[in-house]
């Protein structure tokens, strides 16, 4: 599922791995320190190393689970290229990531639908940036609009949409670029429980259909267990990896799953990891 962690952060190791097994994503000794407004140095992420194997033709969901404000999002932003690590490096398919790229699309907790574009235009945005003709872009976008269940709302403006629908737009808009990585920063955090549940189901569906690896940040243990193939449990700030947990492949992801013993056991294990770290 996921390659064994590379242990230390020797500079040569990621390179060697890239040559041999070629992991999809590698973080090697990534630390992020930034200067706050008051001038203090804040260490957000400390020495995070992991790699994710390349598994062509199979979607995978990797969840980063940690307490609120622990620096999970910072890790995601380093992968997106929105932030440059203070130390260490991030490699995607062996290439060091420098800056943003449309092979790594990001979905935020805040609603980011462009209010001046219709649902269809929002989804077509990435294609239009590349100069794809309007008609062609809209045809392609319609498929993704349908895939996230918004076919009836394609001509609406975001102000007419609910929060869940806005997040569907954001997901479709990112998928149309066919990114290698789909980065999701607590995307369902602002949704009501029912919508949240629906969206989790949608995401699982998408990961089965599409070939993207999804990196998903959350502080919700149950969400992590439901979605993840692999969970990285993170400590409070500065974020470090406490443990990587490869989850059993739940055969059925439906309403009953969350109350099953199997699910509860994994949930308890993750909770123990989170709270054990907090107590120490």
């Amino acid at each position, binding site marked *: 599922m996921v390659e064994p962690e590379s242990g230390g952060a020797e500079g040569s190791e990621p390179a060697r791995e890239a040559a041999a097994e070629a992991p999809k994503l590698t973080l090697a000794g990534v630390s992020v320190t930034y200067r706050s407004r008051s001038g203090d140095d804040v260490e957000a992420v400390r020495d995070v190393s992991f790699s994710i194997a390349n598994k062509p033709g199979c979607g995978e969901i990797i969840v980063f689970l940690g307490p609120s404000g622990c620096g999970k999002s910072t890790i995601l932003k380093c992968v997106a290229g*929105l932030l440059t690590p203070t130390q260490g490096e991030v490699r995607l398919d062996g290439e060091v990531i420098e800056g943003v790229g*449309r092979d790594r699309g990001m979905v935020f907790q805040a609603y*980011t639908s462009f*209010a001046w574009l219709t649902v269809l235009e929002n989804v077509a945005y*990435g294609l239009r940036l590349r100069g794809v003709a309007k008609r062609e872009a809209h045809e392609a976008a319609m498929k993704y609009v349908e895939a996230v269940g918004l076919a009836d709302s394609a001509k609406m403006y975001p102000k007419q949409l609910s929060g869940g629908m806005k997040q569907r737009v*954001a997901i479709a808009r990112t998928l149309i*670029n066919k990114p290698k990585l789909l980065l999701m920063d607590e995307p369902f955090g602002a949704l009501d429980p029912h919508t949240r549940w629906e969206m989790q189901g949608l995401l699982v569906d998408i990961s089965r259909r599409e070939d993207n690896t999804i990196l998903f940040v959350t502080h919700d243990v149950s969400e992590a267990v439901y979605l993840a193939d692999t969970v990285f449990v993170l400590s409070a700030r500065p974020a470090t990896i406490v443990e990587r947990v490869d989850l059993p492949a739940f055969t059925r992801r439906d309403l009953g799953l969350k109350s099953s013993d199997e699910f509860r056991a994994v949930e308890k294990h993750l909770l123990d990891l989170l709270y054990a770290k907090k107590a120490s």
Partner: protein
Amino acid sequence: MPPNEGNVPASGPKVGPPGVAVVAKSRLAARRAPESTWAIRRPVSARLRLPLAFALPVLLLVCWCVLTLGQPPLVGELFLPSPVRVVQVTLRMILDGTLFDAVAASAVRIALAFAAAALVALPLGVLMGAFEPVERFLDPILAPLRYMPISAFIPLLILWFGIDEGEKIAFLFLGVFVYLLPVVITAVRAVPEELLQTALTLGATRAQVIRTVIIPAALPDIFDSFRVMNAISWTYVILAEFVNARRGLGYLIALAGNHLKTAEVFSGILVIGLIGLATDALIRLVNSLLFPWRETANG
């Protein structure tokens, strides 16, 4: 008798201690219920709206009539002309074309100065809002400008641009520009960071982020500020036209004042008020047509 929980008003007096308690409770409920016109932030009921809107104008008009329509009037014509006189003068100026001519002259000056100010302030504000080095570079000059009385520049502008149209438009330009620029910068800054980051991760270049996200997102706020700019423009145009103008509303008022034609001064001021209301409504209409997609607080 079942206990009254306050949602049904107690009917008639009740006997005995429990009854007293019930009555007292329902009175309390009635006082707390959102009936009072003076509850904080309570919208005025539809029935009260028209009377409230007309009360003060009517009161002022009555006072005005009492002061000016007596024989002889309580206040002399020179200081306070009668409403009848003001209406007569206004009608005369409409009919002989002077009023239209004056309004047109002022409006053209405002339009030209406004277009020039927008042409400079929009790109400059977008650059300053998007790129902090540009802002830090220009702010030492632009920040103090905001606190200077623009009218203090009139003598300088006369020296530089002469006493004709150029000076008046330059003055108006300056007046609008110093207010518009910070509005543009603030509007650009108010675009949520996540929107920019989303565009970047979708493959937008920096230029594309500015063109496809920052500008469309900031434009409604900027266009809203045009209402304030409109008010500022009409204030400054009068001031500008006090100096050696041969046309315009300010000129008309200044000339009337110099010749002690108080009724014409009144007429000019009223016309400016009406123009202000009309242009404000027009700007609001245009904005709602331009930005139908806009998310508003109430839907």
